[in-house]
């Protein structure tokens, strides 16, 4: 089966990329001045203790280092770490050694996944028809609105939009929609809108450009020469072909959306991956930081894989 082969090939690619991500972030964190990954930073931090009680000092050092595998040579540490991450054995947090990272993520991750995928879905569902209308009614008010909104969407990051939403629904239209927290579906509405807004514009803009280009192509002329009616021609020949051209640019765009979730979560105070990451990074909790980077990267690449699979289904020229 070609599709199975295609997917497994892509999964191997994803794994290689993730291994590189883990390696790069591990090395960087190993050499960072804050925190306790490197023996020397740990030693500096515990220097007072070393003077008072050398035995205890040695004990603390050994215990800490063996727990996080820091006593091994760097390459072994990395290899071990990669293996643990890829088998979803995330270990314990460094700041709260009693806390299992997996437990912390159990609640946070699904929320982030839902926000990211929900906004991607929403932006396609709204963006594609908008783009079609803008392309067909070129230079009409719909067209101007789409191009201006998409430019604005590209310029204004999700977190600024989130702030505006908080202002609007927290101050002006108080009580219509909740602006903080997580728990029921209503609290998902504003974050998803903030995350999608930019994408809706971008998707619509790409769709517009792509459809205009497609409608100028020779095979559209052939369809017209066949006498195909307007809407069948637009949908079957125009839109389907422009989707193939558009899908390829969506991958990077959605990567940015996933990134945007962690900002938007901050503003709306949603206990998801973004907050976990913030704690991890600001408190130098390396295992937690690397794990969250790993998960965020995975989300982005799985989204890309889905885009590629859809692409391969629409366009027969793609070699599986």
């Amino acid at each position: 089966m070609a599709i199975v082969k295609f997917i497994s090939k892509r999964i191997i690619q994803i794994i290689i990329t993730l291994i590189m991500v883990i390696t790069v972030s591990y090395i960087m964190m190993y050499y960072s001045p804050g925190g306790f990954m490197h023996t020397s930073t740990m030693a500096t931090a515990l220097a007072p203790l070393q003077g008072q009680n050398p035995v205890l000092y040695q004990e603390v050092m050994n215990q800490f280092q063996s727990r996080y595998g820091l006593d091994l040579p760097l390459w072994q540490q990395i290899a071990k770490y990669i293996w643990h991450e890829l088998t979803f054995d995330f270990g314990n947090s460094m700041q709260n050694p009693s806390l299992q990272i997996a437990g912390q993520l159990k609640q946070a991750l699904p929320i982030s996944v839902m926000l990211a995928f929900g906004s991607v879905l929403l932006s396609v569902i709204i963006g594609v028809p908008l783009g079609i209308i803008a392309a067909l009614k070129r230079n009409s008010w719909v067209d101007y609105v789409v191009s201006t909104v998409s430019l604005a969407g590209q310029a204004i990051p999700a977190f600024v939009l989130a702030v505006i939403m908080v202002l609007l629904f927290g101050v002006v239209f108080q009580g219509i929609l909740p602006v903080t927290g997580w728990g029921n579906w209503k609290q998902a509405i504003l974050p998803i809108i903030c995350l999608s807004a930019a994408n809706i514009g971008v998707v619509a803009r790409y769709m517009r450009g792509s459809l205009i280009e497609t409608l100028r192509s020779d095979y559209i002329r052939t369809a017209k020469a066949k006498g195909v009616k307007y809407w069948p021609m637009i949908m079957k020949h125009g839109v389907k072909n422009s989707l193939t051209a558009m899908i390829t640019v969506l991958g990077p765009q959605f990567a940015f959306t996933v990134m945007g979730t962690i900002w938007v979560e901050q503003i709306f105070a949603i206990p998801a991956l973004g907050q976990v990451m913030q704690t991890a990074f600001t408190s130098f909790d390396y295992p937690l930081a690397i794990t969250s980077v790993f998960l965020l990267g995975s989300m982005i690449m799985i989204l890309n894989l889905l885009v590629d699979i859809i692409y391969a289904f629409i366009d027969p020229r793609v070699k599986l």
Partner: protein
Amino acid sequence: MASTVTATQSPDSAVSKQRRRSQFYQGWKRFKRHKLAVIGLVWVVIFCIAGVIGPWVAPYDYRTGDFLAINQGPTWTHIFGTDNVGHDMFSQILYSIRSALIIAVGATLVSFIIGIILGLWAGLRGGLADIIIMRAVDFMMTLPGFLFALILVIMLGRGYLSLILAIGIPGWAGYARLIRSLVLSMRDGEMVEAARALGASQAHIARRYMLPNVVGSMGVALAFGIPGDLIQIAGLSIFGMGLRPPIPSFGSMIAQASENVLGFPWLLYFPAGIFAITLLSFLFVADGLQEAFSPKGGN
């Protein structure tokens, strides 16, 4: 009536320095037709001037707060109001503009320089260097630069230089790819081939065909790069990983204000509003440049 049959531009028509200069002039003319781009440019210029002269015109120091006037709405003494420790928001914003500009311009330059070096290397050397560099480009492009920026901040710290590097280093891939493609298109481009076939000298080819193309493409890329970096700086601050307090920044002002938006919404109006308008302006300018100078630009 003179001859009413006129020729369209033929390839052997005389080209001169004047024509080249007029290409930029034509671009400027096209840019001016773009109303939003011109408005954006005006704002960008004001923003940059505010960044440069900020410390001299700011009515208050950014470090000291007026404890007798905390969480005030806009008044004559504090036209944008004050925050929870009595910082004058107007002064805070002026200093934020300065810090944001320093980091954004610095980071864009860092990305650009790395991009030029690696892009030239890949494009001119070809072979293995090209393959490796382009693979690295692909790797960098799969993941958002912000992810790398976060990790780099941990390693480098939270000063001006560290932030410039943390945001600048991961941003090289796009520029490298652009430079490489420019190099390749220049080396084997049809236009250059045609010019060479017509007997144009190397220097002439470089001046007449390469320079406008290169300057245009790079200008557009840089114009899009700066607002992108501004977003990243603010994103880092929201994450609590931006410049160390007390240096003010848009991200930290927005993050702080959004925590208590119900009580003191004006603390959000000005920073968020100015930040959004600035990003929009940069983007309108970039968009205008693209349509004015990019060879494929426009609809």
